[in-house]
């Protein structure tokens, strides 16, 4: 598939889960395609990073379900901040473990899972829909009843995949990408490189095959497709570019320039613009060295 073909499978108003964590292994090529589409009113569920920021900036997000939005090396996500401070999005703010529990409940087709996280905190205040549940056993303890977070669609990014939908992560952390896929009606997986099935196990241990083909509806090869987030060991976060993204978020004018340079075209033109940016950056560094 192509990113555009994935977008064609989505509808306005859908609940879309996005894998990765913060500014790490985000399916940014797919996110950029969604941002450039006509889709609107999405509910986005994510351990938020610049994926959330880009979708907010493009006006795609009606509601965000998250425990945080961060760029990791830059702690606050600028587009998320603007949207919250101007009231542009609705927010379901959960403890990050509650988000995990909600995805697990959805994957297991349960209506909720009990948990201690949330009790006593203002997560209960700002989410009046949350209920508690009492243990039916002798302990009688009361828990937060974390509701399932079923997704219409999940988007994840892997280091490698085969064409049938078996996906492999080669970095240190799987994050929750398998759960996002299982919590969704349909999941689409982008990857750095599509390889023959036999090549998967020669590239890493069998435990690195996080996604199996029953979990996904489509595979897209998007080289450098997690840029500017990290996708180790293929590449680290592009810190300089991330800083450009933050700087561009400072005003509508600078954002318009950034958008025109990087986001107005398709994925190929984004990657071309990034290559050009890097070449100029390297030349500048060479000149100053």
């Amino acid at each position, binding site marked *: 598939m192509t990113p555009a073909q994935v977008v064609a499978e989505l509808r306005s108003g859908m609940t879309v889960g996005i894998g990765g964590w913060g500014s790490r292994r985000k399916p940014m090529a797919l996110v950029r395609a969604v941002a450039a589409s006509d889709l609107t009113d999405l509910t986005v569920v994510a351990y938020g990073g610049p994926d959330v920021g880009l979708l907010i900036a493009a006006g795609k997000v009606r509601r965000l379900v998250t425990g945080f939005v961060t760029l990791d090396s830059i702690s606050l996500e600028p587009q998320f*901040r603007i949207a919250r401070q101007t009231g542009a999005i609705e927010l379901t703010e959960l403890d990050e473990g509650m988000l995990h529990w909600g995805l697990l409940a959805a994957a297991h087709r349960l209506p909720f899972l009990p948990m201690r*996280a949330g009790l*006593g*905190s203002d997560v209960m205040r700002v989410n009046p829909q949350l209920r508690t549940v009492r243990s039916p056993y002798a302990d009688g303890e009361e828990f937060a009843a974390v509701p399932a977070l079923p997704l219409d669609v999940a988007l994840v990014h892997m280091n490698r995949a085969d064409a049938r939908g078996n996906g492999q992560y080669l970095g240190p952390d799987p994050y929750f990408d398998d759960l996002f896929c299982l919590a969704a009606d349909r999941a689409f997986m982008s990857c750095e490189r599509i390889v023959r099935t036999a090549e998967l196990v020669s590239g890493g241990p069998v435990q690195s095959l996080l996604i199996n083909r029953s979990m996904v509806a489509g595979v897209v090869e998007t080289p450098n497709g997690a840029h500017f987030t990290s996708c180790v060991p293929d590449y680290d976060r592009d810190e300089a570019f991330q800083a450009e993204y933050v700087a561009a978020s400072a005003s509508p004018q600078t954002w318009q320039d950034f958008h025109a340079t990087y986001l107005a075209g398709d994925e190929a033109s984004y990657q071309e613009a990034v290559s050009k940016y890097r070449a100029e950056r390297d030349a500048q560094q060479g000149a100053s060295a």
Partner: protein
Amino acid sequence: MTARDGAGGATLAEICVVACAEAWRGDGAKVASPMGVIPTLGARLAQLTFEPDLLLTDGQATLLAPGAQSAEAGSGDRVTEGWLPFRQVFTMLAAGKRHVMMGASQLDQFGNQNISCIGDWARPKAQLLGVRGGPGNTVNHTVSYWIPRHSRRVFVDQVDMVSGVGYDRVAGLGEKVRGFHELRVVVTNLGVLDFGGPDHAMRLRSVHPGVSVYDVADVTGFVLAAPLQVPQTRLPTAKELTVIREQLDPEARRDKELA
């Protein structure tokens, strides 16, 4: 940061590193999760000296223990001893095998912490990180806080959004949760505080060299409990200073966090 009189040549940052390290004393084989430069140096100092069983990550999913050459100056030698992806962090957290030292944009008298947003949650004046793991951490395991700039902006009468849960709120929860909940210390650039006051109110445990009780009270937005005689924070030993300066932080990143 220059040396202060009576600090034995230690800088304020080094005193804070040792005060943070002390937070994990007695924890044994628990995951120490420090947020920030000085807490991270503190946890590593504790692991290298008086609390060798502590587990520490590289900030991502790899558990690192001191390596065979770790005692050599500037070696930074560490060996991978395990794997701790976020899903496992969540399980360790719920199992109580963790002690995190978080930051706080706001902290009240009973230890309610806010890292989510400033102002009305519905439309905040300043959106910050979100609650992150604060709610779950505080009802499951030991939590401490690190505040590099002790001020009335941080130490407030009431926080705008409760992320980490304080003693007054946990008092209304079940017996299990009350047992799991422990806010151990709050380390700041002025001193060390704990929750040993009346009804677990915040109390001044020690002041750093050159700081008076009045200095601390003056920049705290609630009435701070304190014993009649507030001792001085323990100073780093010569060995600890060597470990901090030569092994853990030869580039003195610790000073920038207090600048």
